[in-house]
């Protein structure tokens, strides 16, 4: 006869679940509202989403650090908290993009906003756990929502992108499951700390299996973070999604990916598996360099930004590989700074989005579209120029500080060659960012007589987002130090 199992409610430590539950509840609320009253204006849903995200954020701030909950699968450590904060704030800013002045297909569906909140909850689960199964569940929840949101854009390109993303994602999920299986087989646990413990105890025998599991995991997250050679979906997906969603994809899912990679691979490297470090080194260098070189030859600004995001992700991967406390605090510093600037750049693309306007038989945002922009719309051109030179890492704007910090952490940890490669890559990157600046400031306009196209999709809230991004970018010199204190505190709390 089965024994009756009783679990006291306190042992579940339910408060650890509250943030995610708020997001899920938000999604459900939106669906229920739609059930009762059809054809409500999108702005209601946007505001509801922001409301729930704000509550979510509040709940995250309220979390007590370093506790476990819900059958010990939840792990609330510093890195979980800070990554959730970053993701929620970025999501809140990106959902404002939906306040576009033109009507788009996807925003007509309340499901879009519900999916958005489910996706956020998924990412939150992913970062707040060290249980391979829960991470997987979170990952898939988020990914499936994302695929669907992409398709809702309802253009041939977006179907194509979503199918590609989905197929690749399925394959990555397969690798993940395979890897988790091997780890389980080796150690009899799906808890990361347990896995490391057992691996260490057994002296990593049999080594080949440990490596196979690690490789499969690497492939899976290589896909998620779009590192070379698993990046191929990136540009197509960016191109197929709306600029708003592309901006989102370039920032938020990667935060979740970074956290899991930090948890798994820094653990493995710390255990002393040098091989992982070498492989990561190679991947980092390839990702930074090749993505930069490909970005050079793009004809479309969005695709260029896609490759540039890949390259920036490579920078952050370098910090993960270095793994010192300085590097780890730098990861979030870099990504926060990058998030705001990238937000601005994609927002500029998004406000210039005009349905049915064609500048090129294939691309929505060819470089030519921005030619001579400074004559037609000086403020817009200056803004875009600002984001471009910031992405290129020109002082004193935000990303410069992130780069300096990461490169100095590389030097301090003795990775001199890596530091040099990082510097060289920053130089190459300046080339393609400045290409857009050259188009905007030095070429003759060809898009038409007036500059209205550049603000075709603008609305007050989009301008506010742009203003926030620009302000943050310019004034970052004053924020860098507090942000760094903040990230260092949380990273130190979780022992990285």
């Amino acid at each position: 006869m089965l024994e009756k199992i009783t679990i006291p409610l306190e042992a579940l430590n339910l408060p650890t679940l509250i943030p995610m539950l708020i997001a899920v509840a938000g999604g459900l609320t939106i669906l229920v509202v739609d059930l009762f009253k059809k054809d409500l204006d999108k702005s209601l849903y946007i505001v509801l989403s922001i409301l729930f995200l704000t509550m979510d954020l509040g709940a995250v701030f309220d979390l007590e650090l370093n506790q476990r909950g819900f059958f010990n699968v939840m792990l609330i450590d510093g890195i979980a908290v800070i990554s959730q904060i970053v993701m929620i704030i970025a999501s809140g800013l990106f959902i404002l993009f939906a306040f576009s002045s033109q009507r788009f297909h996807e925003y007509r569906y309340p499901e879009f906003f519900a999916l958005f909140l489910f996706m956020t909850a998924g990412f939150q689960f992913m970062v707040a756990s060290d249980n391979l199964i829960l991470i997987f569940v979170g990952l898939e929840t988020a990914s499936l929502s994302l695929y669907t949101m992409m398709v809702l854009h309802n253009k041939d390109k977006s179907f194509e992108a979503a199918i590609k993303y989905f197929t690749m994602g399925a394959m990555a999920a397969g690798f993940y499951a395979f890897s988790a299986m091997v780890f389980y087989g080796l150690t009899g646990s799906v808890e990361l700390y347990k896995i490391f413990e057992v691996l260490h105890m057994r002296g990593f025998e049999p080594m080949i299996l440990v490596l196979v599991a690690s490789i499969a995991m690497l492939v899976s997250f290589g896909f998620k973070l779009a590192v070379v050679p698993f990046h191929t979906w990136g540009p197509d997906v960016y191109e197929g999604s709306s600029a708003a969603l592309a901006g989102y994809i370039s920032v938020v899912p990667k935060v979740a990916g970074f956290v899991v990679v930090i948890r798994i691979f820094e653990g493995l490297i710390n255990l002393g598996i040098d091989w992982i470090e070498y492989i990561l080194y190679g991947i980092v260098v390839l990702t930074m360099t090749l993505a930069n070189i490909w970005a050079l030859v793009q004809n479309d600004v969005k695709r260029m930004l896609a490759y540039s995001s890949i390259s920036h992700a490579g920078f952050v991967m370098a910090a993960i590989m270095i793994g010192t406390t300085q590097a780890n605090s730098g990861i979030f510093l870099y990504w926060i700074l990058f998030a705001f600037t990238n937000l601005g750049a994609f927002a500029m693309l998004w406000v210039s989005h005009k349905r049915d306007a064609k500048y090129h038989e294939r691309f929505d945002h060819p470089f030519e579209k921005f030619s001579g922009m400074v004559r037609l719309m000086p403020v817009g051109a200056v803004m875009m120029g600002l984001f471009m030179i910031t992405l290129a890492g020109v002082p004193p704007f935000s990303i410069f500080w992130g780069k300096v910090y990461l490169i100095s952490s590389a030097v301090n940890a003795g990775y001199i060659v890596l530091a040099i490669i990082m510097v060289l890559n920053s130089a190459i990157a300046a080339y393609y960012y400045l290409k857009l600046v050259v188009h905007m400031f030095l070429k003759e306009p060809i898009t038409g007589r007036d500059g209205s196209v550049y603000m075709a999709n603008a609305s007050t809230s989009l301008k506010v987002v742009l203003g926030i991004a620009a302000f943050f970018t310019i004034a970052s010199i004053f924020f860098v130090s507090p942000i760094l204190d903040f990230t260092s505190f949380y990273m130190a709390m979780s022992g990285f």
Partner: protein
Amino acid sequence: MELFLYTALFAPLAGSLFAGIFGASPKNIITGLVTSSLIFLSFVSSLFLFVHLYNGGEIVHVEMMDWIMAGDLSVPFGFVVDNVSSTMMLVVTLVSTVVHIYSMGYMEHDKGFNRFFSYLSAFVFSMMVLVMSDNFLGLFIGWEGVGLCSWLLIGFWYHKESATWAANEAFIMNRIADLGMLIGIFLIYWNFGSLQYDEVFSQVAETDTTILTWIGIFLFIGAMGKSAQFPLHTWLADAMEGPTPVSALIHAATMVTAGVYLVIRANELYSLIPEVGYFIASLGAFVAFFAATMALVNRDIKRVIAYSTLSQLGYMFVAGGLGAYWIALFHLATHAFFKALLFLGAGNVMHAMDDELNIMKMGGMRKVMGWTAILMIVASLALAGIYPFAGFFSKDKILEVAFDSNHYILWGVLWVTAGLTAFYSFRVVMLVFFGKERYKDFGFHPHEAHKFMLWAMSPLAVLAIIAGFFEHQFYNFVTGVLPHYNFSEEIHHVVGQLILVTTGIALTGIGIAVFSNMYREGVFSTVLQNNFIYRFLDNQWYIPKIYDEVFAKPYIELSTLLWNRVDVKIVDATVDGIAKFLHTTGEKTRGMQSGNLSHMLRWVVAGFTLLLVLAVVYTYYSI
């Protein structure tokens, strides 16, 4: 007292920012009124501080905040109001107030009215920082600030090619000199470990003379640029392209005297290195003479006055160089009053003549602008050094110093210059206000300036007349900080003769100017005008030409050479090569991104396989 200090310092800044808000909008008289009242407020505060010190009050010294704290270097943002700086503050704010009010009339039809007042007040702020700072770095900030404002104001009518050129010339000349000044400041920090005046000057006595000499030379190079001393003098005459109130304020009364102020401020340093002092005095005497000769023949009313400014700055440097710092400061103050007056008078004339500057086209204008004529004659008498006008007292003291310290050659040069000064000032007065009304031939219809502009000038006129009588009070006041200058016993016996001789030559100069103009319109005959000396002087001793040939042209040649050979062929080629290489690599490998889903999946699997192979190899070898 701190409140007065901050008011005096920041009121001009507030005015500048206020006017700056309206910088791009059309003329608004409010900006003029607000900036003028704020400058006046600053003047009143300076007056309070002055009176406070005059009545034996404490020197006001504040540290507003920490400014630069890097390692051992600690430079607080501090200000000091002592006897010297309060004198400077009073002069600066007084002339600024007058010029601000005057400008409301002078610039009334100008499109950039608001912008003008913004710049002008910004200048006053920078000048206040310069004179009030308690350390060399703050002084340097003010120094650069006035340079910037001077650039903005000379080039105020930026659509005029000549104005932008003159602005750039002034700026670049000053930058060259500023390099010297910076080196001086570095040397000070290097040797004394501080930039605070009091800390530095308390240590100079124990320091090696060679080092002090170098510091003195480099600081003086900075002073030469700002005060337009030979060979960096060319910019001052060209700076007359700016609006006339600017010339009065910046290029006569205040900014150009910053160099003299620096020498006075660093008197503890310069009194230890008399050789450098002697060099300064000699250069000053040379410039006094040199500039006066150029003023003799020039036909541009503003340029004549500009050369005269140059010449008077030379006088100040003679006094400063010979250790008579209080006399240099005294001449600085009196000169500020009468020279600003002279410039503003010239502004009235220019305005009446629709910006015509050629004095040969004027004449007989006293009939239409009597008050301006009187004001300018007062200023010219003061400049020529006629008793009882202000210039008499201060200039005479300088000549006395030169004679007393046995520098008879310097005295001789200055004595001749005094005659030249009297001559050229009255040549201008005669050609403009007396004689035949030549302007009628050119179709001008001059008219007197606004009443309020004349009223604004009146305080300067009063001071140009009476300032000299306060010599003793001035002496007692500033020697509270500055060293005394001890005249020898013998000088007392010859003072009477010296004054007589100097007044004699001044009166002779005036006489020649007056009579030659009566005898022949235009002062110089055609025969004289074809004389080599006349042409030599008219071409400014051919110095601009020499600069052009010796510096500008070879520099352009060198630049072209470097551009064609080094930059294009080596630097550009290398950079382009790298860029091309990267671009080609990108083009060749972009095939990886074919957009084909099957290919994408294959890449993933290929990556996985590669990693797997590496893993196997690693495990095999590590066992």
